[in-house]
C-alpha cells in the first residue's frame, strides 16, 4: 500500500513540477517549483512517511545521483569560456567575486567552529566547514535573469544591477569549486598510496584529460542520438572517475567542462544542446534525493549551521557588497549599487550538489548535518529571496527617476 502512495506522490509531484496548477501559481510558489525546491520538500515528505524504507531507493539511484552531480558540474564548467570572460573587465570580476569570497570565509570559519564545538574531530570539522563555505559562496542567477525580462527590471539602472547580480552569481562558482576541492582533499581514506596533494593534482590533470577526450570524441561525425549516448557516457565516466577517487564529481566535471569549452571550436555547444534534455530530470532527482537524506536530521548543531547559512551568509555578502558598491570603471553595463547583494540570496544548485557528494562519500553524522543545513537554508533563502530582489529593483529604479522637484 505504501508503495502505491509513494508512486502517487511521485506522479503528483511530477505533474505539479511540469505544469503547476493555478492555485500553486497564485501562492507565489512558482519559482520553488521551477528551481526544484518543491521536490526537496516532497523528498523530505517521503522520508518522513516511510522511515527507513526509502533507503534502498536512494542506494539504487546512487549512480544516477553521481551522474547528476557530474552534469551540474559540467554545466557550470562550460560557462567559463575565456572568449566570453575576456569581454568583462578584470575589476568587475573582482567586484563580482567579493561577496562570494567573503561569505565562503566567514561561513566556512563559523561552520568549522560549530562542528568542532559539537564534538566533530578537527579534520572532519574543517572539511565540513569548507563544504559549508562552498555552499555559502554559491548563488543562483535564475531569479535575477527572470526579473530582467519583466516590467519591474526593465529600467536601465535595474538592468545594470541585475546584470551585476547575474555576473556575481555566475562567477562565484570558482570559489565554490576551490573550497570543495580543498574539502575533499582534506579528508582522504587511509589506504591512499599517494599524498593527498599529489592525488588532487593528478585528479586535476585527469579532469583536463577528460575534457580533451570529450573534445576529441565530439570531433567525429555522429547522429543526434549517438551524441546523446556519447554525452551521457562521458559525463557518467567523469563523475565515476571523481567518485572513485573520493573527489567531488561536480568539481571534476566542472574542470573537464572548462577544459572542453576553452579548446578550439564550438564542440561543447554540440554536447550541451543534445544532453540538455536530461536537465529537468537531473534537478528532480537531485532535489528529491537531498530531501530524502536531509529529512529527520535534528539537533542544535544543525540549527546553528542553518543560522550560519542564512543570517551569517547574508551578512557577509552584504558587508562585502557594500564595500565594493561604487561605479566600476570600464564596465558601463554593470552597476554595483548599494544593497546589490540582495540579489545573491538564492543558493545555487552547485553548492547543494557538493554537499550531497560530500555526504555520499563520507556518510557520517557531520557530513549529514552539513547536507541538512545546506538543504534547509537553501529552502529558507529561496522563500524570501524574491521579495528582497524585488525591493532592490524598486529601490534602484526609484533612485534613478528624477524627483518631481528636480523638474522645476
Amino acid at each position, binding site marked *: 500500500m505504501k508503495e502505491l502512495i509513494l508512486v502517487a506522490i511521485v506522479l503528483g509531484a511530477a505533474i505539479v513540477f511540469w505544469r503547476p496548477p493555478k492555485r500553486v501559481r497564485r501562492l507565489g510558489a512558482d519559482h520553488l517549483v521551477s528551481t526544484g525546491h518543491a521536490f526537496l520538500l516532497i523528498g523530505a515528505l517521503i522520508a518522513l512517511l516511510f522511515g527507513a524504507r526509502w533507503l534502498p531507493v536512494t542506494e539504487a539511484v546512487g549512480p544516477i545521483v553521481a551522474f547528476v552531480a557530474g552534469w551540474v558540474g559540467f554545466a557550470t564548467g562550460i560557462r567559463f569560456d575565456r572568449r566570453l570572460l575576456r569581454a568583462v573587465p578584470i575589476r568587475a570580476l573582482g567586484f563580482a567575486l567579493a561577496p562570494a569570497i567573503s561569505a565562503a570565509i566567514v561561513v566556512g570559519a563559523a561552520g568549522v567552529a560549530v562542528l568542532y564545538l559539537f564534538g566533530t574531530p578537527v579534520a572532519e570539522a574543517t572539511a565540513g566547514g569548507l563544504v559549508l563555505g562552498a555552499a555559502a559562496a554559491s548563488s543562483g542567477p535564475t531569479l535575477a535573469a527572470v526579473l530582467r525580462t519583466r516590467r519591474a527590471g526593465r529600467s536601465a539602472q535595474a538592468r545594470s544591477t541585475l546584470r551585476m547580480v547575474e555576473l556575481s552569481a555566475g562567477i562565484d562558482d570558482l570559489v565554490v569549486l576551490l573550497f570543495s576541492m580543498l574539502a575533499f582533499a582534506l579528508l582522504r581514506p587511509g589506504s591512499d598510496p599517494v599524498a593527498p596533494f599529489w592525488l588532487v593534482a593528478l585528479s586535476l590533470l585527469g579532469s583536463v584529460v577528460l575534457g580533451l577526450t570529450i573534445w576529441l570524441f565530439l570531433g*567525429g561525425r555522429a547522429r543526434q542520438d549517438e551524441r546523446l*549516448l556519447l554525452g551521457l557516457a562521458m559525463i557518467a565516466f567523469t*563523475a565515476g572517475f571523481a567518485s572513485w577517487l573520493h573527489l567531488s564529481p561536480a568539481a571534476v566535471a566542472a574542470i573537464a567542462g572548462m577544459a572542453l569549452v576553452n579548446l578550439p571550436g564550438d564542440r561543447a555547444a554540440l554536447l550541451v544542446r543534445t544532453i540538455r*534534455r536530461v536537465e529537468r530530470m537531473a534537478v528532480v532527482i537531485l532535489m528529491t534525493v537531498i530531501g530524502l537524506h536531509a529529512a529527520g536530521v535534528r539537533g542544535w548543531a544543525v540549527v546553528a549551521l542553518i543560522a550560519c547559512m542564512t543570517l551569517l551568509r547574508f551578512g557577509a555578502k552584504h558587508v562585502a557588497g557594500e564595500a565594493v558598491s561604487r561605479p566600476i570603471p570600464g564596465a558601463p553595463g554593470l552597476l554595483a549599487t548599494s544593497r546589490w547583494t540582495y540579489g545573491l540570496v538564492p543558493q545555487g544548485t552547485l553548492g547543494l550538489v557538493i554537499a550531497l557528494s560530500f555526504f555520499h562519500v563520507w556518510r557520517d553524522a557531520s557530513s549529514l548535518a552539513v547536507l541538512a543545513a545546506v538543504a534547509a537554508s537553501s529552502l529558507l533563502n529561496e522563500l524570501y529571496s524574491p521579495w528582497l530582489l524585488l525591493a532592490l529593483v524598486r529601490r534602484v529604479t526609484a533612485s534613478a527617476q528624477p524627483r518631481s522637484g528636480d523638474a522645476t
Partner: protein
Amino acid sequence: VNPLVDRLLHRALPLLLVVGMMLLLRLTGVGVAGSGAQSTTIAIGFLLTCAYIGGKLAARIKLPRITGFLLVGIAVGPHVSGLLTEDMLLAGATVEEVAVALIALTAGGELRLDWVRREIRRLLLITFSELFVVVTGVISVVLVTRGWFPFIPQGDLMRASVIAMVIGAVAVANSPTVAVAVIAENEADGPLTRTVLGVTIVKDVILIVLFAIAIAVAKEVLGEADAVPLGWTLAREIGGSVALGIAFGLGISAFLRYVGRDTPVFLLAACLAMARLSSMLHLETLLVALTAGVWVENFSATKGDGLIKAIERVSLPVYALFFAAAGAKVNLGVLASLWPLALMLCSARAVCVWTGTWLGTRLARAEPVVKRYAWYGFISQAGVTLALSAIVARSFPDWGPAVQALIIAMIAVHELLGPIGFQYALRRAGEIGAQRRGSQRADASTPPESGALSTG
C-alpha cells in the same frame, strides 16, 4: 580530413585515453575498488563509451549495433579483460531493470489490437506450432543424448525426463528485447516485422504459463511440491502484472493528455517505478510494461505515437547500456567448458525453430517473406531466458545450477547470432527503413494547414 585519420583521431585516440584512465585506476588500486554507487557510475560511463565505439564499428560492417554493444561488453567484462568486475556491474541492476521496462513499453506501444484481432489466428498457429516442435524436439534430443550430460543420473529416466522438460521449456523462449531493439534500430516495418514482434510477445505470455507449469510438474514429480497451488501463482503473476500494467497505462495516458511535456523524462521515471513495484510485488516487469504500452496505444485518447517518439529519443543509450551490460555478463569460461553440449542443443533448437516456424507459417498461410525468414527472428535469447535459468537454479539446488550453466552457454551463442540473423532477415525482406519511408509518405500526403496557406 582523411577518413582514416578522422577515425583514429576522433574514435581510437579518445577511446584509448578512456581505457588508459580506467586501467590506471584499476591497476594502481587508488580509490574505491568494491561495489557501490562510486564504482557503478564509472562502470556505466565506461560501458557506454565503449558501446558508442562498438555500435559505430558494428554499423560500419553492416551488423546490428546491439551486436557491437554485446561484443564490447564481453571484451571489457569480468570474464575477458576484467576491466569491469562483477561487483561493479551488480549495483547497476536497477538501470537494467529500467531498460527492460522501457523496451517492453516500446513493444506494447507498437502492438495495435485491431491488427492483433485480425491476425490472431495466424499468430497463434505460428506460436503454438513453434512451441510444440521446439519443446518436443529439445526434450527428445536431451533424452536421447542423456548419457552425455554429466548432471543427468544414469538409469533414472524420471529425473532425466524432468530435466529435459525444464530445458525444453527454457529453449522455447526468445528475446523480446532483442527483437524490439533490432526493429527500432533498423526502423523496420512490414509483415515480417509485425509477425516476429507479435509472435514473440504472445510467446512471452504463454511462456510464463508454460514455465510455471513445467516447474510445478517437475517439483510434483520429484516430491518437492510447493504449498501454494499452481493456479493461484499463475493468476497472481499474470493477473497482477496485467492489472499493474493497466494502472501504469492509465497514468501514462493521463500524463500524455494533460501534461505532454518532457515525456522521455517522465517515461524513465515511470519505468523505474514499474521495475521497483514489480520486484516488490513479485510480478513480471516485462508483462507490466507491455500491458502499459498496449493500453496507451489502444485505449487512451492520445495514441501511442507520442509514447514511441518519446522513447525513441532516449532509446539508444538505454539499448547500449542494457546490451553492453548483458555482454559483460556472458561467461566465456562456461561456454568453453560446455561448448560441445551447448553447440548440440543450439543446433537442435535452431532446427526445431526452423521446422516449427515452417509448419506454422504454412498452416497460417503467411506471406512468402514471413514463411521464408520469420524463423531468424526467433533465434535470439537474452534476459528472459537468463531469468528463467536463475529460477531453475533456485528451484532445484542439486541439478539446477548445472542446467543454468548450460543455458547461459546457450544464451551466449543465441545472443550473438540472434540479432545478426534477424537483421539479415529484415534486409532480405526489404523491411529495413520502412517506418521512415512510411512517415515521409504520410508527411508528403498531408495537405498543408489553412494557416500555412494564408501566411504562404
